[in-house]
């Protein structure tokens, strides 16, 4: 029998979290977007809340390291991203000695999960080169390879990224589930519950790996447009990569990624364990995310962002993707034009003006309201370092 105790809380603010933005949305005025249903959370009672929990040691701080040499001919340079990550960790922590920078987040007794994003593999996924450098950093804090776990939700997507072969010996590489319907890797007592569209399963459960398999998580999202959420960055990689049954939050053309993404990230123990976020921005998908393989929409941005505040990093990411879309003549991710909607996958993957959903980039600000970080641009300390 499971002797842990659990408590339910209701995020009645689901609608309120979104309302300030939706109130100004033409689609909302025209009754094009349905209201957010109540979202209930079941989480363990008495979870020890970590002082490192999101937004972590450096709320509002985003360190962006850019180096054009980090990606050439679509290949990521191991040597260059090593230098970028080392400098990023020093800038974030203001520690000159690198292993001390890592030791602010990781202790030798930790079991460290590295949450990657392989969902766009092979065209755009968390670079194995960056993952290898993160492993080196974690090891410098005294963690043995056997206590480092590279993971994501779908094992088959990790296979496509070849992570198994490309990480150092001893490091474990694990997918939470093998197929769409495999629920064996999830904790039945920790979940988010909501009925969005009349679906038969209204719960999304938290992965056992997060609940009991690791003590710390380093989040390694990619920098991508997302057809339903607006962008996928730290928050979506963490929330939708930790809970199952998340596709149900969006049904064309509507999306409840706002506020579900932020609510999921607020659930313990996920919130306490996610102590560091390292966004792989060597490539930027500015349209067609999260799955596109169309290289016309993948830009060699050549940057890495490091921080403990997922909201602040995603706010900068959103700004960058918006700027790129504007430069390319694509509609804003905030646009709510019914004419842009399509149900034709071929159209979506070839035309940056088309989309399946009304995107919900406001999920980032909604997460900020839940205390996960800083979304107000003027309050974000954006440290820029250009190496080359």
């Amino acid at each position, binding site marked *: 029998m499971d002797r842990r105790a659990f408590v339910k809380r209701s995020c009645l603010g689901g609608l309120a979290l979104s309302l300030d933005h939706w109130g100004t949305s033409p689609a909302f005025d025209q009754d094009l977007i349905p209201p957010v249903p109540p979202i209930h959370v079941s989480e363990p009672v008495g979870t020890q809340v970590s002082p490192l929990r999101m937004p972590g040691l450096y709320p509002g701080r985003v360190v962006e390291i850019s180096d054009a040499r980090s990606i050439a001919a*679509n*290949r990521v340079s191991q040597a260059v991203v090593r230098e970028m990550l080392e400098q990023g960790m020093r800038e974030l922590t203001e520690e000159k000695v690198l292993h001390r920078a890592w030791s602010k987040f990781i202790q030798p007794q930790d079991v460290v999960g590295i949450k990657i994003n392989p969902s766009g593999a*092979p*065209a755009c996924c968390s670079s*194995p080169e960056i993952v290898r450098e993160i492993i080196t950093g974690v090891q410098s804090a005294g963690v043995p390879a056997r206590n480092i776990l590279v993971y994501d939700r779908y*094992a088959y997507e990790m296979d*496509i990224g070849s992570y198994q*072969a*490309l990480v150092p010996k001893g490091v474990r590489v694990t997918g939470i589930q093998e197929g769409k319907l495999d629920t064996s890797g999830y904790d039945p007592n920790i979940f988010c519950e909501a009925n969005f569209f009349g679906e038969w399963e209204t719960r999304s459960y938290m992965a056992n790996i997060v609940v009991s398999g690791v003590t710390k998580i380093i989040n390694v999202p990619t920098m991508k447009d997302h057809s339903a959420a607006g962008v996928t960055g730290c928050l979506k990689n963490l929330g939708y990569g930790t809970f199952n049954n998340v596709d149900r939050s969006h049904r064309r053309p509507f999306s409840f990624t706002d506020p579900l993404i932020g609510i999921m990230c607020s659930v313990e123990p996920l919130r306490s364990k996610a102590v560091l976020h390292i966004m792989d921005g060597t490539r930027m998908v500015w349209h067609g995310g999260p799955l596109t*393989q169309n290289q016309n929409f993948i830009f060699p941005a050549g940057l890495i962002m490091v921080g403990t505040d997922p909201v602040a990093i995603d706010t900068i990411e959103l700004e960058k993707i918006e700027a790129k879309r504007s430069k390319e003549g694509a509609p804003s991710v905030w646009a709510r034009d019914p004419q842009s909607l399509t149900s034709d996958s071929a159209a979506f993957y070839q035309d940056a003006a088309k989309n399946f959903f009304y995107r919900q980039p406001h999920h980032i600000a909604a997460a900020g309201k839940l205390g996960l970080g800083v979304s107000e641009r003027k309050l974000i300390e954006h440290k820029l370092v250009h190496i080359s």
Partner: protein
Amino acid sequence: MTSNQQNWPTLLCNNARSGGQVPQPWRAPRRVRWQIRLEGAVRGSPILDGELLYVPSLAGFLNAINIRTGRLQWKFKATAAIHSTPSLSLGQVLFGCDDGKVIAIDAASGTKCWEMASEDEVWTSPVIQDRTAFFGSADGNLYAVGTEAGAQQWKQMLGGRIYSTGHVVKGRIFVGCGDGNIYGMDAATGQVLWKTETGNGIDCSPALANDTVFIGSQDFVFYALDAGCGTVRWRYEAELGITSAPAISGELIVFGCKAGTLHALHIRTGKAIWKSRIGQTIMAPPVISGSVVWIQAGDTFAVNLFDGRVLWKANLGNSVQSAPVVTEDVVYLASMEGEIYALE
């Protein structure tokens, strides 16, 4: 209908990875003779011996399916998931498991004969020659064990994890490694004779012809190396990483890259003869049969060997890693979710 089957005892039919090379005129499959759903997803490839098709699954079962009836004859439960493509030798089926074991099963009855343990998962296929099984492990060792009882003959630590199935010929074994090196080794002792560095890790399995080792790397490059010393004879650049093991037919060498493109090169020069974008991604090895290249790349494709034209395709379960067994009248293949098809 009686199947005119041939044996297909290991990955891509035989140790030469010939894919069978059945000389037959092309005709598209007309119907599904049978299909069966196994417990668990399938990543490895089926093998065939007589009337039994052996299929590994991630639920940890080695399944033996009777090809006349399409029914399960027996299944063996291992202690972990099986990614490894099995190999047959002297009445035993050998395969690796995710808990590091390599297990030998009696091919007729499904009872365990022996097992041996490495330190990490074994996704590679055991290569059997002269009563010795060679396999690589994610623990970084290449192992040689006797096929009678699994006694270790030697092991050799390489610089990274091993997900490349070795190629054994004339007393030598060639294998790629996660450290980015291609190794040429003495099959009797495990001694490293040469190694050649590439720009990223390798999970592609090599092929060999004309004293040349052919292998792809995650650095996007396909290499042809002198089998004697590892010197690069030619290199060919693809669009993305290469996991798909090459298949050889005459003067052509065919492989896929992760961009979903099938490439056919001239075996001596490395010049592209054709390339054909067929799927979202390709990781599985192609199988050449007569004038046709069979490959699973999301959909299952039959492609003209001489010009890359798609002759036939079917949506049969999204597999991107498993390779089919191609006999004269039936093609056996596994979907990602564990559906097994016999197409005739």
